[in-house]
């Protein structure tokens, strides 16, 4: 088990462009499954290659259990990377592919053979020894690639988009397999993904990166409940944002004043954020305002409403039973539960794309 520390890690490919990875500090816990999450081109894979020793950082340091490993060659780091496209060596049999790492470590043939079999059992593909990679499906290749990495008992396992090339059914299967093996072997595992759902389902902790910079490093649920910025909240799917001024536990907006005990800003200009499923329709009382139903969509397991409150449009997701209660054009009370309101800073000028979307 190995704890991985990234300290001020920076990678600049080209002076003309901004850094691919910018001053990244990260503490990856020993024996845990950590996700590097972010849109494509945010520096996730670059970070991973630097940990594996396949790319040299421009500056900063990488430590395994407190010791810098920058001067250690990739083949001696014990950080094994599994690439997104598996990269099984095409002219080798499956057994030779899985045994490759052991052969490089000069392990004797008999032991390699038995450990290859153990690995094939682990990834549930026994009897595949003599096949060639091109005879395998994508999901099978993925499992062989995983076995090939695990056989060398790495200190750190690095998975680059492990599920992205698989169809939905295989993805679930692979997810379970990765989680099971990771828990059984207790290997510090880092995986890269652009899919926030994948990160949330699979990881113990998620590091969210935008443009090579760390945005938030937290347990998965924090990204939904207490995002650091409007941009993060947006990345994690539909949230309503209403600008206002925050002071002493209340936020004053154009459409009213709301109690909001949970806030990131002590005082000043702020953004009220509330998820569509936290908006209560048809309930009056404290923290409620009056709105007009603009439109609605019935989607089986839930119903989605567009509501206009003053000059602002918000989205609400409710139980399907409520569809019949409100017709388009109705004036109804809309309540924001204070415990579900999260007040954020106004950093939206930097990221106009994230500004006040429903």
């Amino acid at each position: 088990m190995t704890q991985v520390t990234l300290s001020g890690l920076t990678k600049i490919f080209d002076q003309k462009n901004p850094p691919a990875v910018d001053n990244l500090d990260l503490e990856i816990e020993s024996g845990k499954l950590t996700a590097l999450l972010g849109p494509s081109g945010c520096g996730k894979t670059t970070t991973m290659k630097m940990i594996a020793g396949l790319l040299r950082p421009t500056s900063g340091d990488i430590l395994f259990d407190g010791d810098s490993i920058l001067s250690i060659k990739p083949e001696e780091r014990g950080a094994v990377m599994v690439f997104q496209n598996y990269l099984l060596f095409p002219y080798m049999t499956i057994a030779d592919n899985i045994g490759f790492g052991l052969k490089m470590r000069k392990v004797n043939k008999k032991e390699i053979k038995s450990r290859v079999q153990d690995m094939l059992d682990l990834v549930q593909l026994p009897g595949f020894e003599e096949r060639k990679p091109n005879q395998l499906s994508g999901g099978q290749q993925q499992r062989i690639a995983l076995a090939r990495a695990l056989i060398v008992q790495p200190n750190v396992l690095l998975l680059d988009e492990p599920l992205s090339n698989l169809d939905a059914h295989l993805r679930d299967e692979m997810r379970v397999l990765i989680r099971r093996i990771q828990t059984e072997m207790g290997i510090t595992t880092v995986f890269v993904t652009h899919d926030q759902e994948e990160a949330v389902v699979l990881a113990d902790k998620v590091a969210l990166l935008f443009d090579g910079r760390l945005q938030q490093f937290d347990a998965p649920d924090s990204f939904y409940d207490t995002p650091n910025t409007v941009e993060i909240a947006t990345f994690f799917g539909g949230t309503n944002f209403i600008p206002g001024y925050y002071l002493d536990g209340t936020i004053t907006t154009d459409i009213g004043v709301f109690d909001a005990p949970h806030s990131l800003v002590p005082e000043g200009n702020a953004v009220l954020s509330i998820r569509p499923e936290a908006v209560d329709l048809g309930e009056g009382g404290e923290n409620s305002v009056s709105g007009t139903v603009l439109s609605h969509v019935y989607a089986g397991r839930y119903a989605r409403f567009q509501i206009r409150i003053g000059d602002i449009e918000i989205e609400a997701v409710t139980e399907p039973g409520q569809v019949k209660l409100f017709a388009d054009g109705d004036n109804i009370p809309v309540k924001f539960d204070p415990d579900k309101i999260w007040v954020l800073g106004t950093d939206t000028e930097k990221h106009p794309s994230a500004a006040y979307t429903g």
Partner: protein
Amino acid sequence: MTTATAPFPRIRSRTVGRTTLRWVGIMGLLSFLVAPMVPLFIWSISFRWFYPDILPSEYSARAWEQVISPTNNVIGATGQTTLIALLCTVLSVLLGVPAGRALGLHNFKGKRIVEVLILAPIIVPGLAVVLGIDTMFIRYGLSGNILGVTLVHLVPTLPYMTLVMSGVYANYDVDYELQARSLGARRWATQRYVTLPAVFPGVVVGALFTFLISWSQYVLTLLIGDGQVETLPILLFNFARSEPAIAGALSVVFILPGILVLLLSSKYLSGDSAAVGGIGNI
């Protein structure tokens, strides 16, 4: 029953059509490749062959006796041609594979210029190039010996080797090497177990080209060899005017390695091989 069997004759006729086409193709190729050799062979065993006879009126083994006889040094020249071609092949693999890798995998300033410069020896007539080289080679004692001839043979061969390899490497995913390193392979082990098997067909094709181009060099060998280095093409040229029968026999000897090498490496020359793709750059 009839409806069930109906599709079969149609499928069969299509297969028949395809095999016929294949045979026509093979025969066509053979007539282009083999037919020109037939008169050469007939020349080599003829004693009297004058117009308008279709075949010689008298036959003789004299030409072949001359080929084997030590006075004409055919065996020596064959050995020397082979030695030069092999040396040239080894050198061009050692230089061309890394050069092709650099061109195929990396982008660097002036890459376009380097590509044009590599093509230059193919575009510029060999005679023009070698006249300049000759004076240099005389100065450095490379004129009139095997080493000099081998080196000058690199001028037309290295471009082919380099371009074939650049095509191969352009289709090669370097991540395979990173994967191998990550799994614990050192630099050399990575090259040996991962890279070499992947690019091997290209090396074979490039080596083949090099061998054959070197094997058939005349002008370069004549000028740099300065009459001291006697290879098969030089010998062949000497006999071509005076002794057509011997020239015919020599031609047969001369053509054989080409056909042999081609047959041995035919599996690497299939159309969808990346190595062949590289030749498209030429």
